[in-house]
């Protein structure tokens, strides 16, 4: 398929300008194993590349609808404040089970999902609260679900890991690492079969890349030309195991080339970079019915879940990544582009805080599901 090969090459070249993927070199160690060089993880490199694209980004941002930019920042702040509230009420015993927080990764969900049409489909793993809200689920219905209440988006049957909404084309919320990559591939299959014009955003963490379903899915998606955008949220850790302790070849974007699939490496702390890369992938999916793999590098500030002791990394490491906090970077960009003022930032913070308080009030007051719900929804 010469056409595919050409387009892959072009995209890879672009990724080199945008991210560090193309600069990665593989070194073969004396013992015969190959590994990435350390620069791939280098924060300084990410900063330099960010600085290099800043001027053009500031120019292009002025061409984007101000309302959309404001909404993007609002959703990022809302996601942050919502997750902070989850941590708070989890510690108070209001939320049971697992609870995986998205703090630090907001630019990925907002940058990518806000480039979609409402009818497009989204599926993700268990770190799903923010994706659910960006897709249109109310903070009330998400928090009530976390509380295990009747007003939750799935009536208290799913909890933290299983947010769903047919109305908003949000296909979950899945708890088996990598499982949703295959299901998302099937969503794309249906979109193509029915010629609906929908595209699928399929999110997963970098640790899921080591599962067979990742490779099986990419193979089928490229073979059958499915409109699926695979977004690998590389937050460096699969639970407490760092990527370098778990993956022989750490350059995830390039793994797509094993399947002839277009791919890009994206700075996941830069919401506009995520948006631009996703728009390119959406164009490819919608107009050519071809898939893309985006490796979006961010950093998980919190533990894997609320029960994570965090003894596998240092506070200093976390602090270094927090210097490039996605909300701070985006605020700074919007300010530099004279899109939003400090006063408007304050207003966004107030609105987000009020939305979270409304969600808490709703969740607190929503009743527990009736016990008659136990045996419903097992079969149609």
């Amino acid at each position: 398929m010469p056409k595919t090969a050409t387009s892959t090459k072009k995209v890879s070249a672009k990724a080199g300008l945008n991210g560090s993927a193309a600069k990665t070199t593989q070194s073969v160690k004396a013992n015969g194993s190959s590994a990435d060089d350390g620069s791939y993880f280098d924060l300084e490199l990410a900063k330099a590349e960010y600085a290099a694209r800043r001027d053009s980004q500031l120019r292009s941002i002025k061409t984007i609808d101000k309302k959309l930019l404001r909404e993007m920042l609002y959703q990022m702040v809302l996601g942050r404040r919502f997750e902070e509230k989850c941590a708070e009420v989890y510690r108070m015993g209001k939320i049971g089970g697992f609870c995986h927080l998205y703090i630090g990764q907001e630019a990925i969900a907002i940058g990518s999902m806000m480039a979609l049409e409402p009818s497009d489909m989204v599926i993700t793993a268990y770190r799903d609260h923010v994706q659910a809200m960006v897709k249109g689920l109310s903070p009330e219905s998400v928090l009530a679900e976390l509380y295990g209440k009747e007003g939750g988006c799935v009536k208290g049957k799913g909890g933290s890991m299983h947010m769903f909404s047919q109305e908003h084309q949000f296909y979950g919320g899945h708890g088996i690492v990598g499982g949703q990559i295959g299901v998302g591939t099937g969503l794309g299959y249906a979109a193509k079969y029915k010629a609906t014009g929908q595209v699928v955003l399929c999110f997963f963490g970098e640790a899921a890349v080591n599962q067979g379903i990742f490779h099986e899915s990419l193979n089928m998606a490229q073979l059958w030309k499915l409109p699926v955008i695979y977004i690998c949220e590389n937050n460096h850790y699969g639970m407490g195991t760092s990527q370098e302790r778990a993956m022989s070849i750490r350059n995830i974007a390039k793994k797509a080339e094993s399947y002839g699939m277009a791919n890009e490496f994206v700075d996941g702390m830069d919401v506009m970079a995520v948006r631009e890369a996703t728009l390119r992938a959406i164009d490819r999916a919608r107009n050519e019915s071809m898939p893309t793999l985006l490796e979006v590098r961010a950093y998980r500030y919190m533990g894997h879940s609320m029960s994570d002791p965090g003894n596998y990394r240092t506070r200093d490491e976390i602090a270094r990544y927090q210097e490039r906090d996605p909300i701070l970077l985006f605020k700074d960009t919007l300010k530099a582009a004279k899109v939003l003022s400090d006063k408007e930032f304050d207003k966004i913070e107030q609105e987000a805080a009020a939305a979270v308080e409304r969600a808490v009030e709703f969740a607190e007051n929503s009743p527990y599901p009736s016990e008659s719900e136990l045996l419903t929804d097992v079969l149609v």
Partner: protein
Amino acid sequence: MAVLTIRDALNEALREEILRDENVFVMGEEVAEYDGAYKVTRGLWKEFGDKRVVDTPITELGFAAVGVGAAMAGLRPVIEFMTWNFSILASDQIINHAAKMLYMSGGQFKVPIVFRGPNGSAFQVSSQHSQALEAFYANFPGLKVVMPSTAADAKGLLKSSIRDDNPVIFLEQERMYGLKGEVPEGDDFIIPLGLADIKREGTDCTIVARSMTVPLALQAAEKIQAEFDVSVEVVDPRTIKPLDIDTIVGSVQKTNRLVIAEESHEFASVGAEITYQVMDRAFDHLDAPIKRVSTAETPMPYAKNLEAAALPSVEKIIAAVKDVCYL
């Protein structure tokens, strides 16, 4: 009525449902150009083309997942496993995804999908290709489990399964694909899921059999009738889940004796479940302890004599009936 093999009855069911509903498609290994590893999909690709009959790579977990996602988005996939043994690679998608989706989405996302293919032993295909998995899949809420034993049942139940809005595990038997039987004409012939069928009426002992053990039980019944003048009733549940326990209990209340013949291993089997349910519902009607005939608690051996020794047989069923009838 037409006389068809089970293979051709299944083929008719697929063809009619593909014609009936544009959202139905068949996907699996070798289902299209090769005409199906066991020829169940013979001719369908030539008739309907790439969109409706889809060859996959050897990627069971992957194409099961594609089916689950496609079903969530409104299609009605029929996913063929070349044998159910290979479904174990895909069991994450069947059990963790298909079976759970409706419940964990609070009733929002149904998964109308059929997983089908041959289950149980074949002809000396040894340990990894001879397993009967009905007890495994029947253990998970959210799945229906169907096991036809005749051509008519195969057609009617497969059509019902494809029209069902739940994930259905449809278990065929390779040894039985060539068995012939009468099949009612007309593309509106369906058999509802969850209804047992009394394959032979009798008064003295009930045999509950399914899939491959149904013809064995019928042969055993004839021999017992001739030799001992004992009248055996053969009940075929046809759907394992939901199980038509009423029909089974009704038969036991009449005959007061029960033998269960099954191709799966006996530990934690469907037979064990039926034994419990009959004990719970009809304890006072039993005149003898329930007996089971199952596959030996061993991986399937290759050697012909050992394979035969591992599997249920007419002789083993006769022996069990004699036991419960104190003959």
